[in-house]
């Protein structure tokens, strides 16, 4: 689908003259994240973690599989191995080269050695899921997915990270976005609203994280008691005759419930908490992008004011002020589109996260229910059981 052939839903042809409007248009059209297979032409997955041991270090690599029909790629399929460092490199490159866009977060870089086992199955799996999500979010982004660093990440046999330097000089302009030092101006209402929302949302996330952790802790302590509780029934059964089977049954039941509880706490640790933490990182990114936008706006307004105060009104507005204006509009459009996309993702992600939490709890109770229900006939079965066991 070529941009110039696009028609808006209301029938008017698309104005593709300015870059800002075309990217925002694409975003508007592809806002629904439930893309059907037809419109999506880039699929990325992260799987198959493997441990590498060398003389210098031990690290994990992940397999990145890409399937695409895009012409920007030489081949329709790619299989490469990447380590966390590479993902980190990619994210930095994206932030540098696409400063007007919100870059999805990576799972945390540093883990305290000794506290967390970097090579445990659970940790590696949790990280893999987060890396997979990261790449999928980039792949689904109408602008980021066309980024050449992303392309290189997915396709290059050897990720020559110094490659970035050459590209950087070409993108010299974008570096200027990062320059600061201009007096900050009032945010337009819609961006102020975004900032306010993020400030209110962040502590909520923190609270939910703390609650979830506390629940896991209490559940773990409850589990510890259960693990002691069940066996007492077993030792009781050892000196009973008629009550032997019922007591053994109760012991087994408690043991089943313990296993179910252990699964629940593990799942919550592995699936629930990391996603919450990811959103905290996402919000940090978003706040930074807002600040960058503020800087670009400040630069423009400062320069504009300088011009306005000139006495000679006849000379036209200098081109660099015009460029600033373009930058502001571009940034605002990109950010607005990314914000909408982010809000949508956030809603889906949290819906998924919380229904997942509910599901895990339901499964836990269903397992316990099954265990206790199957015990009832055993408990009630008196004479028959005695006859069978003798």
């Amino acid at each position, binding site marked *: 689908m070529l941009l110039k052939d696009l028609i808006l839903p209301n029938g008017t042809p698309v104005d593709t003259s300015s870059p800002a409007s075309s990217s925002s248009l694409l975003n508007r059209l592809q806002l629904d994240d439930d893309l059907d297979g037809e419109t999506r032409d880039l699929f990325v997955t992260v799987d198959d973690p493997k441990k590498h041991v060398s003389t210098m270090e031990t690290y994990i690599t992940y397999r990145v599989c890409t399937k695409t029909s895009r012409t920007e790629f030489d081949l329709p399929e790619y299989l490469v191995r990447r380590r966390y460092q590479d993902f980190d490199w990619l994210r930095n490159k994206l932030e540098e080269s696409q400063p007007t866009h919100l870059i999805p977060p990576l799972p945390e870089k540093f883990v305290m050695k000794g506290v967390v086992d970097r090579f445990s199955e659970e940790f590696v799996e949790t990280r893999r899921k987060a890396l997979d999500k990261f790449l999928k979010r980039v792949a689904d982004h109408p602008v980021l997915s066309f980024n050449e660093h992303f392309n290189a990440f997915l396709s290059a046999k050897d990720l020559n990270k110094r490659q970035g330097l050459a590209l950087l000089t070409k993108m010299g302009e974008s570096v200027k976005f990062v320059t600061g030092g201009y007096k900050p101006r009032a945010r337009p209402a819609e961006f102020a609203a975004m900032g306010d929302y993020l400030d209110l949302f962040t502590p*909520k996330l923190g609270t*939910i994280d703390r609650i979830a952790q506390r629940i896991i802790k*209490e559940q773990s302590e*409850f589990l510890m008691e259960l693990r002691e509780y069940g066996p007492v029934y077993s030792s009781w059964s050892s000196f009973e005759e008629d009550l032997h089977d019922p007591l053994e049954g109760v012991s087994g039941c408690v043991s089943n419930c313990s296993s179910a509880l252990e699964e629940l706490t593990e799942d919550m640790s592995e699936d629930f908490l990391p996603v919450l933490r990811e959103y905290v990182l996402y919000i940090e990114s978003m706040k930074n992008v807002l600040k960058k936008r503020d800087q670009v706006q400040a630069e423009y307004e400062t320069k504009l004011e300088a011009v306005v105060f000139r006495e000679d009104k006849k000379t036209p507005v200098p081109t660099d002020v015009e460029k600033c204006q373009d930058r502001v509009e571009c940034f605002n459009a990109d950010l607005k589109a990314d914000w909408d996309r982010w809000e949508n993702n956030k809603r889906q992600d949290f819906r998924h996260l919380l229904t997942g939490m509910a*599901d895990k709890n339901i499964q836990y*109770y269903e397992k316990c*229910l099954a265990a*206790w229900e199957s015990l009832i006939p055993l*408990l009630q079965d008196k004479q028959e059981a005695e006859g069978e066991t003798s």
Partner: protein
Amino acid sequence: MADSGSEDIAVIGNTDLTPSESENNLKNTMAEKGTSLLKMMEISVAEAEKRTGKNAVNMQETYTVYLIETRPVDAASEGTNPVPDSLWRRYSEFELLRNYLLVTYPFLVVPPLPEKRAEFVWHKLSADNMDPDFVERRRVGLENFLLRVASHPDLSSDKIFYSFLTEENGWKETVFETGFQAKADSRLKALNATFRVKNPDKRFAEMKHYGDELQSVISQLLRVRARAADRLYGVYKVHGNYGRVFSEWSAIEKEMGDGLQSAGHHMDAYAASVDDILEEEEHYADQLKEYLFYADALRAVCRKHELTQYELEMAAQDLTSKKQQREELATGMIRTFSLKGMTSKLFGQETPEQREAKLKMLETQIEEGEELVKERNAECEEFVKSAWVDIERFKEQKDHDLREALISYAIMQISMCKKGIQVWNNAKECFSKM
């Protein structure tokens, strides 16, 4: 213990009976073995009340009294439904009754009282005796005690028990008049003494060991259960925090708000549900506690048997040694070393008259000794017979009751799981609407 037979035998079902005559009826019918009081009479501990009064050292104290209500069974079936007879008793009077029963029927496994002080509590429950929940559970426990005694084939026909239920005033004096206190002191001494039985009855030794093990395992179970209850309480209550944060969060959301808000309510409901769950579990704990204390009663019976056996052995030993002395004296041969024998050897033999006198005394002692051994032997046999019957009865009761307790525990757990599933399904529905 049957009543002394001074009462007249009256006919059951004669509605023209005077109050004293119908009382006699009750007692005489109960005198028949196997007819427990409970078949004749409804008993309940209906209420508990706080009282203040002066105690033995003339100090002000607050205590709880319990209302015991009794009503003849046939009165209810006749449709008249009269007001039940009732009187108030405090815990110490129940204790007095039980001590009396323990002393008077040492061969029976006497039902236990509910605990004096709350033990094995988890943190939310107050260990305070004045706490209304504790008082309520104690009321149920006391009723249970009375029903157990009243349905026991032997205990139910006891006069003191009957008057405990029916005579408000002067009951204490009646109990003390039986002179059980003296027996109580010697019983306590005997139970705490250490002695070794030469030929222990294997069955009783096994039973005592069983009692020890039962007591130990139930204590452990109650302790761990209380700790687990504490933890479970924490798990549920922390979920209540979700309710609050979801509510606050929903205020800053547009489309997600409603789903979050209603999910929050369900989290609150979940947190609140634990109170009922744990209260029900207390009932299970009480059932276990009863058998914890029953184990003690069982051990007491075994201990009493040991004592009886020991006393028999002592008497037999004494008799044997007396017989030996007689033989020595008669034949002049000293078989066993004795100081007297040595001194007589050293300081000369006894005169024939002295020997004659000694022999005569020994003969009397031997006669008495043989009587004693016969008595003690009969006692022992009687004790073993009665005790073993009651132990068998107790075993069956225990197996039945504990099985029932486990079943109701499982049912409780099932109910808890179902509630959990329901709440989380409700929450899930709300989340899916976010």
